[in-house]
Protein backbone atom coordinates (compact mmCIF):
# COMPACT_ATOMS: atom_id res chain seq x y z
CA UNK A 1 0.00 0.00 0.00
CA UNK A 2 1.25 3.39 -0.93
CA UNK A 3 2.24 5.58 1.97
CA UNK A 4 0.39 8.86 2.27
CA UNK A 5 2.13 12.04 3.25
CA UNK A 6 0.28 15.17 4.15
CA UNK A 7 1.03 18.79 4.70
CA UNK A 8 -0.98 21.64 6.14
CA UNK A 9 -1.18 25.31 5.32
CA UNK A 10 -2.40 27.66 8.05
CA UNK A 11 -4.09 30.97 7.24
CA UNK A 12 -2.15 32.74 9.96
CA UNK A 13 -4.13 35.98 10.07
CA UNK A 14 -7.46 34.20 10.63
CA UNK A 15 -6.18 31.94 13.43
CA UNK A 16 -7.27 32.88 16.97
CA UNK A 17 -4.97 30.42 18.71
CA UNK A 18 -7.67 28.26 20.34
CA UNK A 19 -5.36 25.19 20.15
CA UNK A 20 -8.19 22.82 19.21
CA UNK A 21 -6.25 21.58 16.15
CA UNK A 22 -3.17 20.91 18.24
CA UNK A 23 -5.14 18.61 20.55
CA UNK A 24 -6.93 16.86 17.70
CA UNK A 25 -3.76 15.98 15.75
CA UNK A 26 -2.99 12.27 16.24
CA UNK A 27 0.69 12.61 15.35
CA UNK A 28 1.70 15.83 17.11
CA UNK A 29 2.34 17.70 13.88
CA UNK A 30 0.87 20.99 15.00
CA UNK A 31 2.35 23.42 17.50
CA UNK A 32 1.59 26.97 18.54
CA UNK A 33 3.97 29.62 17.26
CA UNK A 34 5.91 31.82 19.68
CA UNK A 35 5.23 34.75 17.35
CA UNK A 36 1.80 36.40 17.13
CA UNK A 37 -0.37 37.38 14.17
CA UNK A 38 -1.81 40.80 13.39
CA UNK A 39 -4.47 40.45 16.09
CA UNK A 40 -1.97 39.33 18.71
CA UNK A 41 -2.80 35.62 18.85
CA UNK A 42 -0.21 32.82 18.92
CA UNK A 43 -1.17 31.00 15.72
CA UNK A 44 -1.03 27.29 14.89
CA UNK A 45 1.79 26.07 12.61
CA UNK A 46 3.18 22.71 11.47
CA UNK A 47 5.88 22.27 14.12
CA UNK A 48 6.76 18.75 12.93
CA UNK A 49 5.74 18.74 9.26
CA UNK A 50 7.28 15.31 8.61
CA UNK A 51 4.78 13.63 10.95
CA UNK A 52 1.67 14.79 9.05
CA UNK A 53 -0.41 11.93 7.62
CA UNK A 54 -2.99 14.14 5.94
CA UNK A 55 -5.91 12.91 8.07
CA UNK A 56 -7.47 16.41 8.09
CA UNK A 57 -8.64 16.11 11.71
CA UNK A 58 -7.27 19.58 12.33
CA UNK A 59 -9.15 21.08 9.39
CA UNK A 60 -12.40 19.45 10.54
CA UNK A 61 -12.22 20.73 14.11
CA UNK A 62 -10.93 24.21 13.27
CA UNK A 63 -13.78 26.59 14.19
CA UNK A 64 -12.54 29.21 11.74
CA UNK A 65 -11.64 27.12 8.70
CA UNK A 66 -8.05 28.25 8.95
CA UNK A 67 -6.29 25.01 7.94
CA UNK A 68 -5.98 23.55 4.42
CA UNK A 69 -4.68 19.97 4.12
CA UNK A 70 -2.83 18.54 1.11
CA UNK A 71 -2.24 14.81 0.59
CA UNK A 72 0.23 13.03 -1.67
CA UNK A 73 0.92 9.34 -2.23
CA UNK A 74 4.58 8.35 -2.13
Amino acid sequence: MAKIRGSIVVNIERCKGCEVCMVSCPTGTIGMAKEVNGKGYNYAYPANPDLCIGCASCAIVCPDGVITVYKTKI
Partner: protein
Amino acid sequence: MEKELRLMKGNEAVAEGAIRAGADGYFGYPITPQSEIIEYLMESKPWETTGMVVLQAESELASINMVYGGAGCGKKVMTTSSSPGISLMQEGITYIAGAELPCLIVNVVRGGPGLGTIQPSQSDYSQAVKGGGHGDYHLIVLAPASVQEMFDFVSLGFDLAFKYRNPVMILSDGAIGQMMEKVWLSPYRERSKTVPEWATTGKPDSRKRNIITSLELDPNRQEIFNQKLVKKYNLIRETEVRFEEFQCDDAEYLYVAYGTSARVCQKAVELARNEGIRAGLLRPVTLFPFPVERINELAGKVRLILSVEMSAGQMVEDVMLSVAGKVPVYHYGRMGGMIPAPDEVVENLKERIIGG
Protein backbone atom coordinates in the same frame (compact mmCIF):
# COMPACT_ATOMS: atom_id res chain seq x y z
CA MET B 1 -38.97 38.12 4.47
CA GLU B 2 -38.05 34.75 5.89
CA LYS B 3 -35.46 34.19 8.56
CA GLU B 4 -31.99 33.40 7.32
CA LEU B 5 -29.54 30.93 8.87
CA ARG B 6 -25.84 31.70 8.82
CA LEU B 7 -22.65 30.46 10.51
CA MET B 8 -20.86 33.44 11.97
CA LYS B 9 -18.55 34.77 14.68
CA GLY B 10 -20.01 36.54 17.70
CA ASN B 11 -18.38 39.78 16.61
CA GLU B 12 -19.74 39.46 13.10
CA ALA B 13 -23.19 38.80 14.57
CA VAL B 14 -23.03 42.14 16.43
CA ALA B 15 -22.13 43.94 13.21
CA GLU B 16 -24.84 42.21 11.17
CA GLY B 17 -27.26 42.81 14.05
CA ALA B 18 -26.52 46.53 13.94
CA ILE B 19 -27.22 46.75 10.22
CA ARG B 20 -30.44 44.76 10.56
CA ALA B 21 -31.60 46.66 13.66
CA GLY B 22 -31.71 49.81 11.56
CA ALA B 23 -28.79 51.53 13.28
CA ASP B 24 -27.92 54.98 11.97
CA GLY B 25 -24.28 55.05 12.92
CA TYR B 26 -21.31 53.09 14.19
CA PHE B 27 -18.22 54.77 15.56
CA GLY B 28 -15.39 52.61 16.81
CA TYR B 29 -11.72 51.94 17.10
CA PRO B 30 -10.27 48.47 16.53
CA ILE B 31 -8.97 46.40 19.46
CA THR B 32 -8.52 42.64 19.81
CA PRO B 33 -10.72 40.62 20.47
CA GLN B 34 -13.50 42.70 18.85
CA SER B 35 -11.84 44.06 15.68
CA GLU B 36 -14.04 41.82 13.52
CA ILE B 37 -17.01 44.11 14.26
CA ILE B 38 -15.56 47.12 12.47
CA GLU B 39 -13.92 44.87 9.85
CA TYR B 40 -17.29 43.29 9.04
CA LEU B 41 -19.07 46.64 8.88
CA MET B 42 -16.43 48.14 6.60
CA GLU B 43 -16.66 45.11 4.34
CA SER B 44 -20.49 45.07 4.18
CA LYS B 45 -20.63 48.81 3.35
CA PRO B 46 -24.06 49.45 4.93
CA TRP B 47 -23.86 53.12 3.86
CA GLU B 48 -24.62 51.93 0.34
CA THR B 49 -27.65 49.87 1.38
CA THR B 50 -29.36 51.06 4.56
CA GLY B 51 -27.56 54.39 4.82
CA MET B 52 -25.88 53.51 8.12
CA VAL B 53 -22.70 55.50 8.77
CA VAL B 54 -19.60 53.50 9.74
CA LEU B 55 -16.58 55.44 10.88
CA GLN B 56 -13.25 54.49 12.37
CA ALA B 57 -12.52 57.28 14.83
CA GLU B 58 -9.00 58.30 15.82
CA SER B 59 -9.43 56.92 19.35
CA GLU B 60 -11.93 55.43 21.77
CA LEU B 61 -12.48 58.88 23.28
CA ALA B 62 -13.42 60.25 19.90
CA SER B 63 -15.75 57.37 19.12
CA ILE B 64 -17.76 57.63 22.36
CA ASN B 65 -18.09 61.40 21.91
CA MET B 66 -19.25 60.87 18.32
CA VAL B 67 -21.85 58.53 19.80
CA TYR B 68 -22.82 61.31 22.27
CA GLY B 69 -23.33 63.69 19.38
CA GLY B 70 -25.25 61.22 17.26
CA ALA B 71 -27.48 60.22 20.17
CA GLY B 72 -28.16 63.91 20.86
CA CYS B 73 -29.63 64.14 17.36
CA GLY B 74 -31.98 61.26 18.21
CA LYS B 75 -30.13 58.74 16.06
CA LYS B 76 -29.57 55.05 16.77
CA VAL B 77 -25.83 55.04 17.31
CA MET B 78 -23.39 52.59 18.82
CA THR B 79 -19.78 51.87 19.55
CA THR B 80 -17.87 48.72 20.45
CA SER B 81 -14.58 48.07 22.17
CA SER B 82 -12.77 45.76 24.55
CA SER B 83 -11.81 46.36 28.18
CA PRO B 84 -8.96 48.95 27.90
CA GLY B 85 -10.93 50.84 25.26
CA ILE B 86 -14.07 50.86 27.40
CA SER B 87 -12.02 52.30 30.27
CA LEU B 88 -11.05 55.18 27.99
CA MET B 89 -14.72 55.74 27.16
CA GLN B 90 -15.94 56.06 30.74
CA GLU B 91 -16.06 59.86 30.73
CA GLY B 92 -18.23 59.88 27.62
CA ILE B 93 -20.48 57.15 29.01
CA THR B 94 -21.25 59.01 32.24
CA TYR B 95 -21.94 62.21 30.22
CA ILE B 96 -24.36 60.30 27.99
CA ALA B 97 -26.09 58.83 31.05
CA GLY B 98 -26.18 62.30 32.61
CA ALA B 99 -27.71 63.78 29.47
CA GLU B 100 -30.23 60.90 29.33
CA LEU B 101 -29.40 59.83 25.82
CA PRO B 102 -29.94 56.40 24.26
CA CYS B 103 -26.99 54.54 22.76
CA LEU B 104 -25.51 51.06 22.57
CA ILE B 105 -22.03 50.13 23.80
CA VAL B 106 -20.63 46.63 23.27
CA ASN B 107 -17.79 45.45 25.50
CA VAL B 108 -16.04 42.27 24.35
CA VAL B 109 -14.14 41.77 27.59
CA ARG B 110 -10.52 40.62 27.75
CA GLY B 111 -8.29 39.93 30.73
CA GLY B 112 -7.03 42.84 32.83
CA PRO B 113 -6.07 45.01 34.65
CA GLY B 114 -4.21 47.41 32.40
CA LEU B 115 -3.54 46.13 28.92
CA GLY B 116 -3.81 42.62 30.36
CA THR B 117 -4.26 39.82 27.85
CA ILE B 118 -6.33 39.41 24.70
CA GLN B 119 -8.06 36.25 25.92
CA PRO B 120 -11.64 36.16 27.30
CA SER B 121 -12.45 37.33 30.82
CA GLN B 122 -15.39 38.68 32.83
CA SER B 123 -13.43 41.08 34.97
CA ASP B 124 -15.37 44.17 33.82
CA TYR B 125 -18.57 43.23 35.63
CA SER B 126 -18.22 45.88 38.33
CA GLN B 127 -17.26 48.54 35.81
CA ALA B 128 -20.30 47.80 33.67
CA VAL B 129 -22.88 47.25 36.40
CA LYS B 130 -21.83 49.63 39.17
CA GLY B 131 -20.96 52.45 36.80
CA GLY B 132 -17.31 52.75 35.70
CA GLY B 133 -17.67 56.50 35.38
CA HIS B 134 -18.49 59.02 38.10
CA GLY B 135 -21.88 60.03 39.42
CA ASP B 136 -25.03 58.16 40.36
CA TYR B 137 -25.85 56.42 37.13
CA HIS B 138 -26.52 52.94 35.78
CA LEU B 139 -26.27 51.35 32.39
CA ILE B 140 -28.72 48.66 31.35
CA VAL B 141 -26.36 45.69 31.00
CA LEU B 142 -27.15 42.66 28.81
CA ALA B 143 -24.98 39.54 29.02
CA PRO B 144 -25.16 37.30 25.92
CA ALA B 145 -24.13 33.63 26.24
CA SER B 146 -24.30 32.66 22.57
CA VAL B 147 -23.66 34.09 19.14
CA GLN B 148 -27.43 34.16 18.58
CA GLU B 149 -27.81 36.41 21.60
CA MET B 150 -24.98 38.64 20.40
CA PHE B 151 -27.15 39.21 17.32
CA ASP B 152 -30.50 39.55 19.11
CA PHE B 153 -29.30 41.85 21.87
CA VAL B 154 -28.24 44.59 19.46
CA SER B 155 -31.84 45.13 18.41
CA LEU B 156 -33.12 44.62 21.97
CA GLY B 157 -30.44 46.96 23.30
CA PHE B 158 -31.49 49.78 20.99
CA ASP B 159 -35.14 49.28 21.95
CA LEU B 160 -34.35 49.45 25.68
CA ALA B 161 -32.07 52.44 25.18
CA PHE B 162 -34.78 54.44 23.43
CA LYS B 163 -37.52 53.26 25.79
CA TYR B 164 -35.70 54.54 28.87
CA ARG B 165 -33.39 57.13 27.27
CA ASN B 166 -30.43 55.39 28.87
CA PRO B 167 -27.20 53.94 27.48
CA VAL B 168 -27.24 50.14 27.15
CA MET B 169 -24.16 47.96 27.36
CA ILE B 170 -23.77 44.46 25.94
CA LEU B 171 -21.22 42.79 28.21
CA SER B 172 -19.77 39.97 26.18
CA ASP B 173 -16.31 38.40 26.31
CA GLY B 174 -13.55 37.31 23.99
CA ALA B 175 -14.80 33.71 23.80
CA ILE B 176 -18.29 34.59 22.59
CA GLY B 177 -16.90 37.28 20.31
CA GLN B 178 -14.53 34.84 18.64
CA MET B 179 -16.58 31.63 18.58
CA MET B 180 -18.58 30.59 15.53
CA GLU B 181 -22.16 29.36 15.80
CA LYS B 182 -25.36 29.16 13.83
CA VAL B 183 -27.36 32.37 13.87
CA TRP B 184 -30.94 32.90 12.79
CA LEU B 185 -30.89 36.35 11.25
CA SER B 186 -34.06 38.35 11.68
CA PRO B 187 -35.33 40.54 8.85
CA TYR B 188 -34.04 44.07 8.28
CA ARG B 189 -35.70 46.81 10.32
CA GLU B 190 -36.13 50.15 8.59
CA ARG B 191 -34.05 53.02 9.88
CA SER B 192 -36.32 55.37 11.79
CA LYS B 193 -37.49 58.35 9.75
CA THR B 194 -38.96 60.23 12.70
CA VAL B 195 -36.96 62.20 15.23
CA PRO B 196 -37.72 61.95 18.98
CA GLU B 197 -39.16 65.17 20.41
CA TRP B 198 -36.15 65.69 22.73
CA ALA B 199 -33.55 65.52 19.94
CA THR B 200 -31.50 68.60 19.06
CA THR B 201 -32.12 68.96 15.35
CA GLY B 202 -32.65 72.72 15.02
CA LYS B 203 -35.45 74.74 16.63
CA PRO B 204 -38.70 75.11 14.70
CA ASP B 205 -41.29 77.75 15.77
CA SER B 206 -43.60 75.02 17.00
CA ARG B 207 -41.64 74.10 20.15
CA LYS B 208 -39.23 75.39 22.78
CA ARG B 209 -35.48 74.89 22.46
CA ASN B 210 -34.22 71.40 23.24
CA ILE B 211 -31.12 71.50 25.40
CA ILE B 212 -28.92 68.47 25.96
CA THR B 213 -26.43 68.81 28.78
CA SER B 214 -25.22 66.98 31.85
CA LEU B 215 -24.31 70.24 33.65
CA GLU B 216 -26.40 71.87 36.38
CA LEU B 217 -24.93 74.58 38.60
CA ASP B 218 -27.85 74.71 41.06
CA PRO B 219 -27.52 71.78 43.51
CA ASN B 220 -31.26 71.81 44.27
CA ARG B 221 -32.12 71.25 40.65
CA GLN B 222 -29.37 68.67 40.25
CA GLU B 223 -30.84 66.70 43.17
CA ILE B 224 -34.28 66.77 41.54
CA PHE B 225 -32.66 65.46 38.36
CA ASN B 226 -30.86 62.72 40.32
CA GLN B 227 -34.15 61.70 41.93
CA LYS B 228 -35.67 61.46 38.47
CA LEU B 229 -32.82 59.15 37.45
CA VAL B 230 -33.29 56.99 40.55
CA LYS B 231 -36.98 56.69 39.71
CA LYS B 232 -36.07 55.59 36.20
CA TYR B 233 -33.58 52.99 37.47
CA ASN B 234 -36.16 51.65 39.91
CA LEU B 235 -38.66 51.32 37.06
CA ILE B 236 -36.02 49.41 35.06
CA ARG B 237 -35.39 47.17 38.10
CA GLU B 238 -39.11 46.38 38.25
CA THR B 239 -39.80 45.76 34.60
CA GLU B 240 -36.69 44.68 32.70
CA VAL B 241 -35.19 41.80 34.72
CA ARG B 242 -34.33 38.91 32.45
CA PHE B 243 -32.81 35.56 33.43
CA GLU B 244 -32.74 31.92 32.38
CA GLU B 245 -32.97 28.83 34.55
CA PHE B 246 -31.52 25.40 33.86
CA GLN B 247 -32.71 22.45 36.01
CA CYS B 248 -33.50 24.70 38.97
CA ASP B 249 -36.80 23.05 39.90
CA ASP B 250 -35.39 20.27 42.09
CA ALA B 251 -31.90 21.71 42.60
CA GLU B 252 -30.14 21.36 45.93
CA TYR B 253 -27.09 23.31 44.84
CA LEU B 254 -27.24 26.35 42.61
CA TYR B 255 -24.70 27.79 40.19
CA VAL B 256 -25.08 31.44 39.27
CA ALA B 257 -23.14 32.40 36.15
CA TYR B 258 -23.50 34.58 33.06
CA GLY B 259 -22.01 34.62 29.55
CA THR B 260 -19.27 32.08 28.84
CA SER B 261 -19.23 30.90 32.47
CA ALA B 262 -22.92 30.01 32.16
CA ARG B 263 -22.13 27.75 29.20
CA VAL B 264 -19.44 26.03 31.26
CA CYS B 265 -21.83 25.69 34.22
CA GLN B 266 -24.58 24.23 32.05
CA LYS B 267 -22.23 21.36 31.22
CA ALA B 268 -21.16 21.20 34.88
CA VAL B 269 -24.80 20.78 35.94
CA GLU B 270 -25.11 17.79 33.59
CA LEU B 271 -21.86 16.25 34.90
CA ALA B 272 -22.91 16.80 38.52
CA ARG B 273 -26.34 15.25 37.91
CA ASN B 274 -24.66 12.17 36.39
CA GLU B 275 -22.92 11.75 39.75
CA GLY B 276 -26.17 12.18 41.64
CA ILE B 277 -25.58 15.77 42.76
CA ARG B 278 -28.72 17.77 42.10
CA ALA B 279 -27.28 20.99 40.72
CA GLY B 280 -29.02 23.79 38.87
CA LEU B 281 -28.03 26.96 37.07
CA LEU B 282 -29.42 30.44 37.10
CA ARG B 283 -28.10 32.65 34.33
CA PRO B 284 -28.74 36.38 34.69
CA VAL B 285 -29.36 37.78 31.20
CA THR B 286 -29.60 41.34 32.46
CA LEU B 287 -26.82 42.17 34.92
CA PHE B 288 -28.40 45.54 35.62
CA PRO B 289 -31.18 45.06 36.59
CA PHE B 290 -29.95 41.98 38.50
CA PRO B 291 -32.47 39.13 39.14
CA VAL B 292 -32.43 39.84 42.89
CA GLU B 293 -35.89 38.53 43.70
CA ARG B 294 -35.54 35.23 41.84
CA ILE B 295 -32.16 34.46 43.43
CA ASN B 296 -33.60 35.28 46.85
CA GLU B 297 -36.51 32.94 46.15
CA LEU B 298 -34.20 30.11 45.03
CA ALA B 299 -31.94 30.71 48.03
CA GLY B 300 -34.82 29.48 50.20
CA LYS B 301 -34.81 26.15 48.38
CA VAL B 302 -31.14 25.27 47.92
CA ARG B 303 -28.31 24.40 50.33
CA LEU B 304 -25.58 26.55 48.84
CA ILE B 305 -24.91 28.85 45.94
CA LEU B 306 -21.71 28.92 43.89
CA SER B 307 -21.08 31.96 41.74
CA VAL B 308 -18.81 31.07 38.82
CA GLU B 309 -17.11 33.91 36.98
CA MET B 310 -13.98 34.53 34.97
CA SER B 311 -12.92 37.13 37.54
CA ALA B 312 -11.67 37.44 41.12
CA GLY B 313 -15.28 37.57 42.33
CA GLN B 314 -17.36 40.55 41.22
CA MET B 315 -20.88 39.25 40.56
CA VAL B 316 -20.67 37.19 43.76
CA GLU B 317 -21.20 40.43 45.71
CA ASP B 318 -24.55 40.99 44.01
CA VAL B 319 -25.47 37.34 44.56
CA MET B 320 -24.71 37.74 48.29
CA LEU B 321 -26.86 40.87 48.47
CA SER B 322 -29.69 38.99 46.75
CA VAL B 323 -29.40 35.96 49.01
CA ALA B 324 -29.35 38.20 52.10
CA GLY B 325 -27.71 35.58 54.28
CA LYS B 326 -30.20 32.77 53.67
CA VAL B 327 -27.58 30.23 52.51
CA PRO B 328 -23.79 30.22 52.13
CA VAL B 329 -22.57 31.84 48.90
CA TYR B 330 -19.17 30.96 47.44
CA HIS B 331 -17.17 32.11 44.48
CA TYR B 332 -15.13 30.15 41.98
CA GLY B 333 -13.25 31.89 39.21
CA ARG B 334 -10.35 31.81 36.80
CA MET B 335 -8.64 35.02 35.78
CA GLY B 336 -6.41 36.67 33.25
CA GLY B 337 -7.91 35.07 30.15
CA MET B 338 -8.34 31.50 31.44
CA ILE B 339 -11.70 29.75 31.09
CA PRO B 340 -12.74 27.21 33.76
CA ALA B 341 -13.41 23.64 32.59
CA PRO B 342 -16.74 21.99 33.53
CA ASP B 343 -15.13 19.24 35.65
CA GLU B 344 -13.16 21.89 37.53
CA VAL B 345 -16.43 23.63 38.39
CA VAL B 346 -18.01 20.35 39.55
CA GLU B 347 -14.95 19.53 41.69
CA ASN B 348 -15.17 22.92 43.34
CA LEU B 349 -18.83 22.41 44.15
CA LYS B 350 -18.05 18.98 45.66
CA GLU B 351 -15.36 20.50 47.89
CA ARG B 352 -17.86 23.02 49.19
CA ILE B 353 -20.43 20.32 49.90
CA ILE B 354 -17.99 18.22 51.93
CA GLY B 355 -16.54 21.26 53.63
CA GLY B 356 -19.94 22.77 54.40
